[in-house]
């Protein structure tokens, strides 16, 4: 059975909760879609169905956190970040409460759901708030690494999980950031679903005899120490992400002081999302692996 990262999150959180009595979960009536069902089945006494009321749900979680609990709040990313942004701002960011937001169905590949359920600028919103750690895993082990890190600290956190199942593990052991291939003069920086698109493009370029390094970034905010140094010899950086071209990882890396040329490959900021298959939507925005590969190829070997 193919599982979404949100399902892996619910399952692994249930495991962690057997060892950590502080963990509880709240859900906004999407438990069978956002992964919370796995926790609810194993730990019903620590599960709260908070109703279709995301604003209240996040404030309730903050109140619990202030009493020593470690609440994990499940819903679609769009409903957490947009419906309850003020509650995130006041109750989590300003008040520094260790609540973890598990946002499923994030990004632009919203399938039948369409624009109301897509979250195209959630990185921009959350990364611009103090104290909140923003994680964007690309596989189950990546996710578990992030979850352990979240619980070992005491910051509020946002786990950004796409609707599309990402069952294929990234090569190597999980880390805050890591290279696939060696750093190259023209390289790719990516996160979340974007890393799978980047790896597919990397493979296509390899078939054409070109080596391009892909740097996967798991923790987007605060940007991990040392990441910028990894890009020291990169002259042109393609940033591939399931987010608007503005306000996401491309903006974050430029804000951090990356001096090379940045080519942002994400969703167009004049698009509000729509229903459709992942493949159609990605191709519409030049995010299909063959399109990305071609763009990188042309950057390395300019025509004419």
């Amino acid at each position, binding site marked *: 059975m193919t599982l979404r990262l949100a399902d892996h999150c619910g399952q692994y959180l249930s495991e962690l909760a057997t060892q950590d009595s502080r963990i509880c979960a709240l859900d906004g009536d999407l438990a069978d879609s956002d992964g919370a069902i796995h926790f609810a089945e194993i730990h019903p006494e620590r599960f709260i169905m908070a109703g279709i009321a995301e*604003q*209240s749900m996040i*404030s*309730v979680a903050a*109140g619990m956190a*202030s009493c020593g609990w470690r609440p994990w709040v499940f819903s679609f990313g769009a409903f957490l970040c947009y419906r309850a942004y003020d509650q995130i701002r*006041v109750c989590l960011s300003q*008040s520094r409460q260790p609540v973890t937001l598990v946002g499923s169905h994030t990004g632009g590949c919203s399938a039948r759901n369409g624009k109301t359920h897509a979250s195209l600028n959630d990185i921009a919103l959350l990364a611009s708030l103090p104290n909140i750690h923003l994680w964007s895993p690309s596989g189950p082990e990546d996710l578990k690494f992030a979850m352990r890190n979240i619980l070992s600290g005491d910051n509020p956190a946002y786990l950004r999980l796409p609707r599309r199942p990402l069952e294929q593990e990234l090569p190597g052991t999980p880390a805050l950031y890591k290279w696939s291939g060696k750093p190259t003069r023209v390289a790719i920086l990516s996160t979340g679903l974007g890393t799978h698109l980047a790896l597919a493009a990397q493979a296509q370029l390899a078939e054409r005899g070109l080596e391009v390094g892909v740097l996967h970034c798991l923790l987007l905010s605060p940007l991990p120490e040392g990441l910028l140094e990894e890009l020291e010899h990169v002259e042109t950086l393609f940033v591939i992400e399931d987010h608007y071209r503005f306000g996401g990882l491309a903006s974050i890396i430029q804000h951090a002081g990356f001096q090379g040329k940045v080519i942002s490959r994400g969703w167009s900021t004049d698009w509000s999302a729509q229903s459709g298959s992942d493949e159609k939507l990605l191709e519409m925005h030049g995010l299909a692996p063959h399109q990305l590969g071609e763009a990188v190829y042309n950057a390395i070997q300019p025509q004419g």
Partner: protein
Amino acid sequence: MQMATHSQPARDIQSLKVEAAELRREIVEALYESGGGHYGGSLSVLDILLTLYRRILRMYPHDPLNPERDRFILSKGHSCIALYAVLRRLGFFTHPLSSYGRFNSPLEGHPDMTALSGIDFSTGSLGQGLSVGLGMALAMRETNQHTWVVIGDGECQEGQVWEAAMLAARYEVSRLHAIIDVNRFQEWGWNQDPDSDSSPVEDLALKWEAFGWRVLEVDGHDHEKLTATFEDAMATRGRPSVVLAQTIKGKGYKLIESDPIRFHCATVEPHEHAQLLEGSYDIAAC
């Protein structure tokens, strides 16, 4: 049964009256020194806060984060100078009240739990406190600790209040208590229309009852009745309780009581400040 603050004995009613008058004067003086602020709501809520802190809450002013304390949230955070006055009097901190809202003062313009001892949760953006209190009550469900949330009647226009009200009733959280400061005014409201009901929210008792809460009503300036009502609320089983405390915006100062819209948040001229100090009610009337 009186759950006095653990470091100090519960105050008798006459002492509370005297203390309330003293704190009202401190608030008015501090607001004048600090350049103005929320006179009306701070003076309407003061007796509620003083009664809670002197006679009801289990608090530890010199150990403010003691996990066994009851929890209190001033959801109508703009009235925080009244809370600061009470907390300061109880010994939670010694910063001057007149530093309210000043640069680098922990007495922020709205309560900040990261800045000041005794603030159980930050507020200021209206509507969020009851949900936070519900979370606290759920977290402490296996204990005998109580959570109190003071909400403005205008604040009850926020949808999140009713989201929390529904969930609290569903989970039968009986140690969660809301107190509504029913001073009948908000910043602007509908008071300009003489034919309109100026209540920020009409039929509050019916609404809370419909949401599954036990509703109690009381004179929000009568310390004895407030004490009895709060104790009654604490005895509630199987559902949360709400106290509708009928108050007067600007209580204690004729000038403010007579112009509640202006004094929701106001600055006063020197002669008005002098008038306030001279024209306050006598202690017995407060």
